[in-house]
């Protein structure tokens, strides 16, 4: 291992401290006081702003009256993943961003913390408000075990469907389990919600890859001896409807020489690595994160928290164009992350492992299709960034191989699954889809909203077709 001597190592205590909850919970009395600040708006903007339309003033007023059971039920009825959403939602641009208090020169109501308060109560009291519906003899398969499928499955189970979730990884929960910064959401939090779905009678088949021959196309998956393969054809045969909640695929390549070197990892693999291996995760002493989205920030701040002395983010555009949310950027700045704006990596140097990153400076030209100014290289501006680890965070690819195998499935030009907006039904009527594979990569709460919508779409479609 070429970079062995350069690894940083922190103790388990340091890990716990560095990755402690970024938004500690409210005490019961603080929750009542905060809940009492809520104006109880009529037809509240926060509820409209929430993709799952949780009735926010209703659950908040129930906290004010210490009716936590009713509050938790209000949240969970709209969003079965209310607990994780309370921790990972970008509330600044959703409910809290819509709060009328923002127009009142006051801090918005701390909706996320209040929601978490009710969800913590629900967990502490093992509150399970829902029961499986009377079996209707119909079966639905959900491919992918992330938030979209969990929400879809929970909804269908209550309607009496026999639902099976197929997940490639050892544990369900999707990015909630494997891909969210530890200081926001722990795998335990995510798995709690998986359990609540399991209690509704939903079956989980983990370490399963959907592959093999489908009714009309051939699906070639990478053979993996640890995975069991189930053919798409058999799913089509055995289930009355199929929900596709497979999210996105691998991280997009940099497409520069040296990308194969040891020490080059993609951000989601890195995040999964440190969340599962914790202190045993190997990180270098100088880390460069390529990209400036929210996942890039999660990777950079995690590297800092894992003890890396020098963490930088390398982005080809400027601060103004960075896709990360403002508060995420603030978090990274507060963690002491260095920013190399208008910097394009062109080559990764190293014998066996990463030694340095060759970059050129960029300047911003005319706006491109997306409206952002197109970066252009500055001639003769080559320079080097010394580093022993490169984390790629340039967005994710689509699961092209799988999606191509689904018969009659229409997709957008950039590879997303096209669905009916109201029902989430795809161009193949037996297939419904939601979450990142449809929206190209958005929030957990968007996936939950899709899953719910798809469940009702499936119910309507199956009833109509007997």
């Amino acid at each position, binding site marked *: 291992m070429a970079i062995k001597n350069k690894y940083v190592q922190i103790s388990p205590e340091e890990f716990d401290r560095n990755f402690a909850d970024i938004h500690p919970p409210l005490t019961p009395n603080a929750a009542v006081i905060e809940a009492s600040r809520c*104006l109880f708006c009529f*037809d509240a903007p926060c509820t409209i702003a929430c993709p799952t*339309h949780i*009735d926010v003033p209703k659950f908040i007023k129930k906290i004010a009256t210490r009716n936590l059971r009713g509050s938790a039920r209000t949240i969970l009825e709209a969003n079965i993943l209310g607990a994780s959403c309370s921790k990972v939602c970008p509330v600044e641009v959703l409910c809290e961003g819509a709060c009328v208090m923002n127009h009142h020169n006051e801090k918005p109501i701390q909706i996320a913390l209040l929601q978490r308060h009710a969800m913590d109560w629900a967990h502490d009291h093992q509150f399970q408000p829902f029961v499986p519906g009377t079996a209707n003899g119909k079966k639905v398969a959900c491919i992918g075990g992330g938030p979209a499928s969990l929400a879809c499955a929970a909804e269908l189970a209550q309607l009496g469907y026999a639902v099976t979730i197929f997940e490639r990884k050892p544990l369900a929960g999707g990015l909630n389990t494997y891909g969210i910064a530890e200081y926001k959401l722990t795998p335990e939090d995510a798995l709690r919600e998986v359990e609540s779905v399991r209690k509704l009678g939903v079956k989980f088949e983990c370490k399963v890859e959907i592959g093999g021959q489908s009714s009309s196309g051939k699906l070639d998956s990478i053979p993996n001896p640890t995975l069991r393969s189930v053919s798409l054809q058999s799913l089509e045969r055995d289930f009355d409807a199929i929900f596709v909640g497979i999210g996105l695929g691998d991280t997009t390549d940099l497409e520069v020489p040296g990308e194969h070197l040891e020490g080059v990892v993609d951000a989601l693999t890195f995040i999964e690595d440190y969340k599962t291996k914790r202190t045993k995760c190997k990180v270098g002493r100088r880390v460069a994160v390529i990209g400036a989205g929210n996942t890039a920030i999660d990777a950079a701040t995690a590297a800092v928290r894992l003890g890396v002395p020098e963490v930088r983010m390398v982005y080809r555009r400027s601060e103004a164009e960075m896709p990360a949310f403002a508060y995420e950027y603030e978090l990274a700045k507060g963690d002491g992350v260095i920013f190399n704006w208008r910097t394009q990596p062109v080559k990764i140097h190293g014998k066996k492992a990463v030694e340095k990153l060759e970059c050129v400076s960029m300047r911003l030209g005319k706006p491109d299709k997306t409206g952002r100014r197109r970066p252009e290289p500055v001639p003769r501006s080559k320079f080097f960034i010394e580093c022993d680890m490169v984390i790629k965070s340039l967005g994710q690819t689509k699961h092209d191989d799988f999606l191509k195998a689904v018969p009659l499935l229409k997709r957008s030009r950039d590879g*997303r699954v096209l669905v009916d907006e109201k029902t989430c*039904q795809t161009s193949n009527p037996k297939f419904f889809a939601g979450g990142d594979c449809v929206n190209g990569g958005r929030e957990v709460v968007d996936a939950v909203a899709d899953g719910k919508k798809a469940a009702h779409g499936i119910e309507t479609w199956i009833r109509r077709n007997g």
Partner: protein
Amino acid sequence: MADLSVTFAKTIKSPNPFWLASAPPTNSGFQVMRAFDAGWGGAVWKTIGEPIVNTTSRYSSIDYNGVRMMGLNNIELITDRPIEDNLREIYEVKKRFPHHAVIASLMVDSKRETWHDIVKRTEDAGADGLELNFGCPHGMSERGMGSAVGQVPEYCEMITAWVKEVARTPVLIKLTPNVTNIALIGRAARKGGADGLSAINTFNSITSIDLDDLAPRPKVSGKSAHGGYCGPAVKPIALNMVHTLNADPEIRIPVSGIGGIATWQDAAEFILLGCSSVQVCTAVMHYGFRIVEDMIDGLSNWMDEKGFKTLDDFRGASIARLEDWGNLDLNYKIIASIDPEKCIGCDLCHIACWDAAHQCIHIEGEGREAPTRVEKESAMNFLAPPAHHPLHVHEPVLHSRGITTRYVGLSGNGRQGQAPPPTTSLHSSTEDAPPALRSNRVPYVDEEECVGCNLCWLVCPVDSCITMKEVRTGLPFESFNDRTKRLAKVSTCEPPST
């Protein structure tokens, strides 16, 4: 700086109108001296009488929206310390603070000799005045004292007269609010010779019940008794009772105002309704003696701004501004006006007006525009209004945005929610653009229908967003009483029908 000094009933003098009410904060010389050091102008000693035994616990309170002690209830009785100890401490306090008012609250058995004895002993100790506790509504009243006296004008007058037979200092009667007409008791005290009144004492109350063990609070071994209620919650009721006393031509003796006073503004209001001094308890029990600093400072600053040099300059100035309802001008009209620049879009005014007032604040394009009078009436007669109309009554519907309509009077044409994430859809039905939330949510007033009730203005959380604007009716002043007279005249002038 304005002169805040007070001379109450000719001889009781204090540097300011802020007195501590007879209550736990005045239980000992130690406390009263600390209070005077903090700036209090006077203290009414915790009621002296034959020492009693108290229970634990003794207090319970009402919180409001996270704020503690909006209202406080107690089942504590009069002093539990020997009479001699209290009298000795009064003597010591007066020696150290000769210019502060020390008034002894007294309560003994309803016997002439007993009252004569305690009055003499207390005055010998140096008290500036006496306050007869005819107000305590709990515990002592069951023993024939406190409000048991204060609720019967004849008893009140009789005992006041007994005390006046021997008293050399002013005698104040502390009144209970647990009566139907407090003026009757005030008049009785006056007839008995009282030099002043203290009003009000606490209200009979049960503050709350523990929903876990079903025991009312405060709990004494799983049980409770009704107590005396005070604190900010009772202030409006106290103001009304104080006004009743001060406006009564048969009373005309100074009143020391009590009831929920916690700030200089509260004090100014009691003085504007005629009080000569004010007494405070709950606020001190909540925050300590130090609160008097801002009471003095704030009152003084306000008086300077208003040009009032002494308390007499504004004492009672608002008494005559309270009229019988029948004398109010029926031709005065105000209507609500909403400032769209200030509106934050909470729409509380809209729903308050629709559900609880006169259905005249609406939202453009929300399916909540103004219904016509015909439509309102048809809804009242349970005739079906047009299906598209907001007053169409129907089962709650699931909007496309997934939430159930909470307003039963709404038909399904309410605003669509935010469009789902901008997915490339097979069949798209809504625009991707997010709603311009704020501008969509500014309500408007139907000025023809507005009755000027103030409700929207009261519920609006934004300062001066809703204002109530006067509308010139062009009609002269006419009260209900005037109108009744005028109409009576008109009807008598009508030619007799033939």
